[in-house]
């Protein structure tokens, strides 16, 4: 009871006594000022860090976008004249983002001369853009027989090299008017004579893996009594790449028109062949009447097999035979047919 009254008295005395009150108020103000300053600095730092983090995120996204650009350049570069080269073909955007092509570079390796052309091509995902001549001609001093290389630059800073399939055509010295004249004169489909070859079997090759076949250098020498599978590489080189792809129907035929041989009388012989289903792992399936799609500028492997198993008559005399490869199919909504008549084979028995 006594201590309670003492406590009450002390509290009253403390409240009544104003000394020390200013210190408390001062301390409160000091704390408020400090909190205010610290929070200002903290919020400022936070906003700066946020903007930094946003930039890091955006930069990473930009780098990711850059690495996701996938452009396939099915393009060739050929000589027009001593001061001009032509770039033809198509660019396809196989990536998930739209891509802007800003620059085309061409180099003549023989003269180490470089040239560039500013472009403004925007490719939406999945789109294909054709580069028709002469819109994409590039001024470049060059000589007949020079080898060229070229590449594209995107707005995201990527360098797009030409599709390796077209590397050979890039090195081609044939001027584009040569291709144009040939394809307009005898047809769009071109055969690669260097890649013509055949496979000989003693029995039916159904299910045979062509990868395990021992390749010889006797590509143009056929054996009459063997089971034969012929392989050719065709490319659609239509002067206008925007034309639809050629669909070759299964009834692609191959004929031996005649026989001329030393010591043998000439006689007309023929064999009838059909296109053959050889899957990408090169296993022979004796499913015939296979359709082949010739994509512009893209070499396509086509296989043939004799309709009767063996290649017709076994009494074909030794000798040289002209051979015609006739292709038939559609190009868009129209029929398309062409005869490739420049092949010769040597038949042995």
């Amino acid at each position, binding site marked *: 009871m006594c201590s309670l009254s003492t406590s009450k008295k002390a509290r009253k005395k403390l409240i009544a006594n104003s000394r020390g009150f200013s210190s408390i108020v001062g301390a409160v103000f000091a704390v408020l000022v400090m909190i205010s*300053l610290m929070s200002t600095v903290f919020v400022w730092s936070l906003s700066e860090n946020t903007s930094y983090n946003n930039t890091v995120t955006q930069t990473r996204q*930009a780098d990711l976008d850059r690495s996701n650009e996938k452009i396939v350049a099915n393009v060739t570069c050929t000589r027009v004249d001593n001061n001009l080269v032509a770039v033809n073909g198509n660019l396809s955007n196989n990536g998930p983002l739209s891509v802007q092509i800003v620059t085309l570079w061409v180099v003549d390796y023989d003269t180490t001369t*470089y040239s560039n052309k500013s472009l403004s091509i925007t490719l939406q995902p999945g789109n294909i853009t054709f580069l028709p001549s002469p819109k994409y001609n590039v001024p470049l001093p060059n000589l007949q027989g020079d080898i060229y290389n070229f590449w594209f630059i995107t707005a995201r800073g990527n360098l797009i090299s030409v599709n390796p399939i077209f590397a050979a055509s890039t090195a081609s010295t044939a001027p584009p008017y040569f291709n144009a004249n040939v394809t307009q004169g005898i047809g769009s489909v071109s055969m690669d004579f260097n890649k013509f070859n055949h496979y000989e079997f003693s029995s039916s090759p159904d299910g045979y893996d062509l990868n395990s076949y021992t390749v010889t250098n006797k590509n143009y020498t056929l054996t009459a009594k063997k089971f034969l599978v012929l392989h050719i590489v065709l490319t659609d080189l239509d002067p206008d790449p925007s034309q639809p792809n050629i669909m070759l129907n299964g009834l692609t035929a191959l004929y031996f028109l005649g026989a001329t041989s030393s010591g043998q009388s000439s006689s007309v012989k023929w064999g009838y062949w059909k296109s053959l289903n050889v899957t990408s792992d090169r296993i022979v399936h004796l499913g015939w009447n296979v359709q082949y799609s010739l994509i512009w500028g893209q070499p396509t492997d086509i296989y043939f097999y004799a309709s009767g198993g063996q290649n017709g008559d076994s009494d074909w005399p030794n000798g040289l035979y002209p051979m015609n490869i006739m292709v038939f199919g559609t190009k868009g909504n129209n029929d398309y047919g062409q005869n490739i008549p420049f092949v010769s084979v040597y038949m042995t028995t």
Partner: protein
Amino acid sequence: MKPRVQNLLKSGRAVSAVISNLILIAAVIAVGFVVVVWAQNQSYNYNKQYSSAIAIDINQLQERITLETCYNSTPTTLNAYLINYGKVNVTIFNVYLSNQTDLIPFNTFNLFTFQNQPVPSNTLNATIGMREGYVRILLLKQLSSGTYSIHIITAGGSAFVFTFYV
């Protein structure tokens, strides 16, 4: 009431305590203000430095250039064609050239547009259509065949290294 107030005013016994308190308060306020101003100044400087450092970092992060091609236009002139594909302008501060082992001294370097116009302050613009340019390096002697690296140092502090073949 009046006589009591008059007596209080006439009596000078508590005046010194009041004055001393006033002086003390004034001194505390003055010192407090000085401390507050100092603290504010310090925090302002800190914020400014921090902002500046962050802005430099952000700028450096956004700097992006790549080499389109590099070749000798003459035996002693090397042209390195660049594109700025970032979001900020990139000022080229210095260029180094090296082979596999050593730095290769050269005379000067300058930035030009693809139309062969000199670019003031060696800055590759980030604006579309003005992003490309080339650094012309005047060599002391012709480069022999081999692999070389070109180091582009930007004013923002980024270093880009590209390899090319001669």
